[in-house]
């Protein structure tokens, strides 16, 4: 996408240069300007080549926790695909919170096949409100199955006025292959809509996602005597633009951001170093 846009503007620059040359009738100023334009164009081309395949530059959305934002390079990148693999019954909330953050004040579309509601419960707008979201910005799209969900996602990603898309898929549907995820990524880059894909009961497969998280719930802070804000044990297992890590994140519904759990309690929110030569997805261990 980037390349195309640059070449368009390059064309325009060229035309400009020709016109100047025409007026100056091959004067030195015209030639110098032409060369300068050319070098600017080249620099742009270099830049775009270096970033080929990477998402366009858009200001990242900070999660609020300094450690995570540092690793992510400022926060969650908009116009990209983020995968969340949830373990347990409460881990999926992390994906919802990421989508809330990414959506900001714009509409949040939640696409899910009917089966999800039966298995994991239907969304309760009251619960979303309690977490600091606004039920008024939510549009729910229920589909019959995963193929429908993916094609609905395609439609939604075409509209740049959408804040974020939360795509909830159970297991490993056949239609969700590398091509499908690449298609989502391209559409998201084009429109700048962030996609958070919540996968429950699935093992990571190769995909075009920018980040991949493995999330489980964690015990709430010992400082709260009986019941605290939600805490997630979030492991960043894949990140195309930077480092990885494991974070203990507490959601603060009041401020609508993640805070550092380590500040609150004895739990340090330790960041375990992830292996540098990680495989794209963990090989299934076989007993010999």
């Amino acid at each position: 996408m980037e390349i195309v846009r640059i070449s368009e503007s390059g064309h325009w620059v060229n035309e400009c240069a020709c016109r100047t040359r025409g007026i100056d009738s091959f004067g030195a100023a015209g030639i110098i300007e032409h060369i300068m334009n050319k070098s600017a164009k080249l620099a742009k081309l270099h830049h775009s080549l270096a970033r080929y395949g990477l998402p366009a530059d858009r200001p990242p959305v900070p999660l609020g926790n300094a450690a995570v934002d540092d690793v992510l390079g400022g926060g969650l990148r908009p116009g990209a695909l983020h995968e969340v693999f949830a373990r347990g019954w409460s881990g999926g909330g992390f994906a919802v919170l990421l989508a809330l953050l990414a959506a900001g004040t714009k509409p949040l579309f939640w696409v899910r096949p009917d089966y999800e509601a039966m298995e994991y419960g239907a969304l309760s707008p009251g619960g979303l409100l309690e977490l600091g979201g606004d039920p008024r910005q939510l549009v729910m799209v229920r589909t019959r199955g995963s193929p429908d969900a993916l094609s609905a996602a395609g439609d939604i990603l075409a509209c740049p006025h959408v804040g974020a898309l939360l795509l909830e898929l159970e297991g490993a549907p056949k239609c969700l292959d590398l091509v499908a995820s690449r298609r989502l990524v391209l559409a998201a880059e084009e429109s700048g809509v962030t996609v958070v894909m919540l996968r429950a009961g699935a093992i990571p497969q190769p995909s075009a996602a920018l980040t991949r998280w493995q999330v489980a719930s964690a015990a709430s802070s010992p400082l709260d005597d009986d019941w605290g804000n939600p805490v997630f044990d979030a492991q960043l297992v894949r990140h195309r633009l930077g480092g990885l890590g494991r974070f203990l994140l507490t959601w603060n519904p009041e401020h609508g951001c993640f805070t550092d759990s380590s500040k609150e309690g004895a739990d340090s929110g330790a960041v375990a170093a992830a292996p540098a030569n990680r495989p794209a997805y963990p090989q299934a261990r076989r007993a010999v």
Partner: protein
Amino acid sequence: MISQKANNTLTVYALEARAQKLGLTKGQPLANARAMVQPLAIMGCDEKADAALLESIADWCDRFTPLVSLDAPDGLFLDITGAAHLFGGETAMLATVIGGIARQGLAVQGAIAGTSLAAHALARYAPATIVPPGGEAQAVAPLPITALECDDKALRALRHAGLKSVGMVAGRLHSELSERLGAGFVTRLKVMLGASGQPLQPHRALPDLMAEQRFAEPIVTEEMIAASLLQLAQHLSAILEREGRGARHLEAAFFRADGKVARIVVRMGEPLRDPKVMLRLLRQRLDALADPLDPGFGFDLIRLEALLAEETKPATISFDSNENARRQIGFLVDRLAARFGDARVQRFVPQDTHIPEAQSAAVPAQDSDFDRQHWSLKRLPGDPPRRPLRLLEKPEEISVPLSEVPDGPPVRFRWRRAQFDIARAEGPERIAMEWWRSRGLTRDYFRVETRDGQRFWLYRDGLYRTDGLAPRWYLQGLFA
């Protein structure tokens, strides 16, 4: 011959011409008919199938006029006011309608008159009559009094009085008749004589606006259909533009040459009049159909109706980016609704109740103004969430071995064949059912957290009682 069970006896419901020649009549007890003629081919009547057939004929008749009314059990009214000239006058139109239905293998009779009851009687007793305006009284005069279709008692009374035709009845003073037979009879008589009108009950909702295209040769190919849809959309859009309105509900009706009618409906969140958008939504709906549009022998009429058209503000280009964004989202919702169905694209409205599962309702996202809804927070500022992010469709029963204290939270529970040990709990929050709506037990809700941080919303259905029966526990929600 078809039999029907009426008043606990089998009677003749309908019979064909050959049986009529043998002297059998409608309404005769079946036993009598059997005694008169042997053998008889008898079938039981299926009123539902008859009604369905009548409906489908009515659908077919939609091609002549938008106002088709069912005259159950065996008749149809077509309001052809202002439509006859499109078919070459009343005589030609009647012939077209009768011919079209007869070609489908049905026995049919018809008549044209100024009022529904006159047409009804003439179609049955003097088929193919076309009554000139104001000529109803004269046209129905020679019909037998059975054409009045009054009950047996009234019929007997009329016969007693020596009245044999409708004309003779009409000759009597209305006050006499209403004294003897009731005011309803006179009203019917007046309608039949054309002295007063009776509104028709349309079989389908009348569209606000419509555009249609007829084809001399039925069209089959997808390109032709799309092209004619676009033309219709442009036509409809021009009408909408002229009236300053936009379509909210759009229906495309495809009339197949063999009588079948397929309809697709698209709903819009906002009044729409752009023909290209209309076409796109219609095509998306067509593509999403589970059984694709089968042209069969081709469509000979395609009609585009604006079932609901609303006033629009004059189209001005708004420079307000918020307004533009809102409209774009509206279009997106329309597109999704056209593809997946209105009920599958939802937004939420708060409900005024404290029963957790009823506190919000999911409604089609195209319906109303959602930005004005007011949602109220349950937790106090600074407190952790008090309501779960997800609610199970139905609370699921969990098995709880023992509570530490009778009114306290459980220590562990089993749900979906897994054991959960509770580390922390908060509660109870007591929610009583609404006695004026449903009778249910008071629920004591607990927010519990397992050792690994999974959070659930449990409730005990009812209180511990002295009789030793333990109340049941349910899991209703999952926290984030």
